């Protein structure tokens, strides 16, 4: 499972970089979305993948029995997803405004502030 996830993460990163190198700002944002999802999945995979082992403490016990999944990594991903969602929502609004102001979907026409 980890090997498969490694390929998925690698594929997402590759696709993200490809999309970000395109000139269209819409594709740029799609690239950013893929990139943040790739990073989240990497975090998920790193914590180890276990099926059907919820980290619950049985009634009366002080610690869970046997091997359980790591809940911290999932909390991290949840945080990262929420943050990523907020930031990407901002990015979508930004490219919309940029499209209205510049009247083009082309990064090559947004070079006025470069040097």
């Amino acid at each position: 499972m980890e090997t498969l996830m490694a390929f998925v993460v690698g594929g997402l990163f590759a696709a993200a970089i490809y999309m970000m190198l395109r000139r269209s700002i819409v594709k740029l944002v799609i690239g950013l979305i893929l990139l943040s999802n790739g990073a989240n999945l990497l975090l998920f995979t790193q914590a180890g993948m276990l099926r059907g082992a919820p980290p619950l403490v049985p009634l009366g016990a002080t610690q869970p029995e046997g091997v359980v999944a790591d809940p911290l990594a999932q909390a991290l991903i949840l945080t990262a997803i929420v943050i990523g969602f907020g930031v990407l929502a901002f990015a979508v609004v930004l490219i919309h405004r940029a499209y209205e102001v510049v009247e083009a979907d082309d990064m090559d026409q947004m070079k006025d502030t470069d040097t």
Partner: protein
Amino acid sequence: MRPEVALPVVLPLLFGAISLALWRYRTAQRVIGVLGTGTLLAAAVWLLLATWRDGVLVMHMGNWQAPFGIVLVSDLLGAIMVVLAAISGLATAVYSLTAISKRHEHYGYYPLLHLLLAGVNGAFLTGDIFNMYVWFEVMLVASFALLILGGERAQMEGAIKYVTLNLVSSAIFLSGIGLLYGLTGTLNMADIADKLADVEDTGLITVIAMMFLVSFGIKAGAFPFFFWLPASYHTPQVAVSALFAALLTKVGVYALFRVFTLIFTQDVGYTHEILLWVAGATMLTGVLGAAAQYEFRRILSFHIISQIGYMIMGLALFTPLALVGGVFYIMHHIIVKANLFLVSGLVYRLKGTYELKELGGMYRSHPILGLLFLVPALSLAGIPPLSGFFAKFILIRAGVEAESWWIVFVALLVGLLTLYSMIKIWAEVFWKAQPEEHANRPAPGPKGTGVMYGTIAVMAAMTVFIGFGAQPIYLIAEQAAHQLLDPQIYIDAVLGDRS
């Protein structure tokens, strides 16, 4: 339990919330802007004094013991950074009283200012690597909104580059955290440092170190990741530019200092050698980029990059003296750079343009402003007895002692080229006569510039003070460097003596 550690984070959040609640009341927001940042400065000074007196301070949030809960840690470097953030925050808030138009205030300028400061201070004080990522994002979101406040075309174009590269940086940072967590099973930085000592696979650690280098390098504007900076920093309101120039890149530098002294010290010969090359290239490209520019704020933006190189040089040499130099340089740079941007804003206010070619004759018409420009400008170039001289002197001395001759040569050369850039501004803006065809350009006018003058004068006085009072500042920087070089101090303070 030390409440002062949490105050620099809590106060801006509180004042930001109050400011948001008073969305419609412009005057109240302005008062709270100055009041909030003033209180923050008081809290920051308290924190610095307490840290100086009692050593590294730790606060376990929600009383969850480290390494399981999130801790806020204030060592001297963190406390110094918080004080500097508060100073630049207060300067910006006061300057904004006349520099920010009604329209921008209605878009929510003041709440964003507070939130930005909260994010920056959080990043300086947190002792948890994932928490640092969260504070980075708090800071970034506030800076995104500040950057596009007003919604002009140049701002949109600059913001797209700024947002994209910072999001890429965050994704790399997050991936690095993921790998680090997979390796050590903890997020507490002190605990990571403790556990990494036992990890056999140093190759993987170096890979993670490079991911952090790329991520923080983008944020710091280091070579070759700096292209977003000169494309965006000259586009927002000048008070915003000043705050960004003072703080945002320095958060990246601080993060580099933190992880490359605390966590990634396994293979110093490899990682810090790369840092040294990055430092040299950053200095050179930044200063050469500035030499080609003829727009006030673009020149200053490029100089941020070259100055970042000096700070990274201090980290890369990794000797006690070099780290002192790096910390000293950060202190000097934040004050000076913010002040130069504030001066450029005042020039714009009086003349209505940032183009050097169209400006001129300012020394004849505004001699005091000319002098107030010279103090930070010469300090940036490293003319004694101003603050920049001592900062550069310590670093170059450290370079000589480490026998890294080429970096010493680069540092000296870049100092000279910095002087060239500053003299260029001086000659074009203040000394030469203004070209006839631009003499009657409409300008916002001198109304309310007293506050701007006051802010600039106080900041210039601080530069002079750091120069003449270099000894006490050096002592603080020395102590901070001592704590950085001995990670055990930090680890023991956070985790307690577990041995």
